[in-house]
């Protein structure tokens, strides 16, 4: 009781002190001018930095300083690679949420579909015309995978647009709520996974691969060359999405539609086309994330995308739903947390780590670390 009274008394007093800070000082004197400038700088910081950044910075600092001495650096590096894969999927997921206002539960299975399409292109399509190979440069996979990547992205992008026309657009026109949309996407998730099992069976598959030397770095860090490829491609894609959203007409229209769909329509923005663009980009990114995951895990399973949903959603929620830059930060935090946790717990429980972070965050700060207040 007494403690509470003290804090109540103290906080306004402290606020009053900072408000008056530098105010009563004589003008023109060096010290006064310096303090006033400092005060202005503090106010500017307060105005431009949302508390989200402060919380995010604090979490990151705690993370790095508190755990670093006990953590194997190799796991941290691995975590960043996993985070890059999560980011590639999560950015698409959060863009779709921002523009269509529902959680696309089928996103993980779009990822899996992308991996299987790439597998088909590499082992059937390209092999049939004599394009074969594994162990391309320092990587375990062959150069045919580089051809398969854009083809898988295009196929899933097209599939995502078709499914929008066939399923989601009909529901949209009936103005159903977000729960109905999410349930429809759950149905599609099961259907897509079923399709994968029908075509490729439920067995574990592998892309043609050849063993390769891992790079040895100081501090006992070992990096498979594949990880460098994964991280590099993810960086390129993230930069690409950033350029798209901030420099191109369709990207700006995507942000405008996410802000306010009705205003977008009365402004003349063709919102249906914007939605298709969102699906194409989200689907394409998901497909690439799926292929990268298949390379990272060195195997394909029909359930690989479904199981990846939890890290995806954890990253999206951590970054503030609908915020692509937040999803990127969230993905790296989740990826590193998941990998580092394997130092103490069984690796098969690492998805639970993402789940726990997601639950704690939903309870403590539901709009995410970088989420804005309204």
């Amino acid at each position, binding site marked *: 009781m007494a403690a509470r009274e003290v804090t109540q008394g103290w906080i306004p007093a402290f606020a009053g002190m900072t408000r008056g800070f530098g105010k009563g000082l004589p003008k023109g004197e060096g010290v006064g001018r310096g303090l006033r400038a400092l005060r202005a700088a503090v106010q500017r910081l307060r105005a431009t930095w949302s508390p989200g950044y402060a919380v995010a910075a604090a979490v990151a600092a705690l993370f790095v300083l508190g755990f670093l001495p006990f953590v194997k650096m190799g796991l941290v590096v691995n975590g960043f690679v996993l985070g890059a894969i999560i980011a590639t999927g999560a950015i698409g997921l959060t863009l779709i949420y921002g523009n269509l206002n529902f959680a696309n539960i089928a996103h993980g299975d779009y990822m899996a579909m992308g991996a299987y399409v790439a597998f088909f292109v590499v082992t059937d399509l390209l092999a049939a015309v004599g394009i074969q190979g594994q162990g391309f440069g320092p990587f375990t996979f062959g150069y045919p995978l580089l051809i398969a990547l854009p083809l898988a992205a295009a196929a899933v992008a097209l599939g995502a647009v078709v499914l929008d026309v066939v399923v989601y657009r009909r529901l949209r026109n009936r103005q159903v709520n977000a729960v109905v949309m999410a349930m429809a996407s759950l149905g599609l998730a099961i259907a897509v996974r079923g399709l994968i099992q029908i075509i490729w069976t439920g067995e574990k598959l592998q892309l043609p691969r050849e063993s390769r030397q891992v790079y040895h770095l100081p501090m006992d860090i070992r990096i498979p060359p594949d990880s460098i490829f994964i991280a590099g491609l993810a960086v390129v894609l993230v930069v690409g999405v950033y350029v798209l959203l901030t420099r191109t007409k369709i990207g700006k229209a995507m942000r405008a539609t996410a802000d306010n769909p009705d205003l977008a*329509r009365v402004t003349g923005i063709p919102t249906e086309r914007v939605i298709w663009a969102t699906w194409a980009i989200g689907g394409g990114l998901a497909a690439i994330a799926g292929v990268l995951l298949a390379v990272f895990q060195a195997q394909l399973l029909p359930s690989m995308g479904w199981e990846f949903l939890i890290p995806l959603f954890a990253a999206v929620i951590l970054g503030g739903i609908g915020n692509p830059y937040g999803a990127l930060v969230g993905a790296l935090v989740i990826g590193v947390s998941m990998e580092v946790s394997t130092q103490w717990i069984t690796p098969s429980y690492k998805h639970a780590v993402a789940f726990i972070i997601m639950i704690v965050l939903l309870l403590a700060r539901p709009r995410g670390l970088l989420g804005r207040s309204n």
Partner: protein
Amino acid sequence: MALLEARDIVAGYGETQILHGVSLVVNEGEIVTIIGPNGCGKSTFMKSVVGLVQVRTGSVTFRGADITAYPPERVVRTGLCYVPQSANVFPSLSIRENLEMGAFIRGDDGRARIDEMFGLFPDLARRPTARAGSLSGGQRQMLALARALMLDPVLLLLDEPSAGLSPAIMGLVFERIRDINATGVALLLVEQQAREALRLSDRGYVLSGGENRLEDRGPALLDNPEVARLYLGG
């Protein structure tokens, strides 16, 4: 000839019917104001003209074409632009990006028109990269006007342009409305500030309970004792 003619509009949301047959005419180059008590259907009327609310019966004709069933993205192509009452800018986009979106369906890239808008609203030209969500109420309203003007509309629909503004800023907004009208753009306003709005209007309509109540020249409505008693506060 009438620029915009709405005849016996019946519209509403879901089960509720809000407009029970509203008719209205805007002639070329006119400023027309709709006044009326809260909930009388002023905003719903605007939304049914631009296609955001479906018209159940009745017709909307604009420049001789029947636009009753047009969706909003098609209405805006006919030269009719609309500024909603609230949420009328894209908050996460910069000032310049908002104007670029206003020019989305222009043939050119709209750069020259953006410069014209910066000339008309010098406040916006000062920080073109500022996020619209960080602007003050007055600046936001100016940006919303500029965004709607990007397409060189023939008719501009403004839903309560003075809502939530201080009297001084309100005066500025009305001044801009007069400037816009002077360039030949017709305006249809919905206003709570009935006195100020009617003063600059050629004609006015009084709606009540989703129906037409009165129609007259702006100054005449101001002098009408019934209007004064009901809507102008004495």
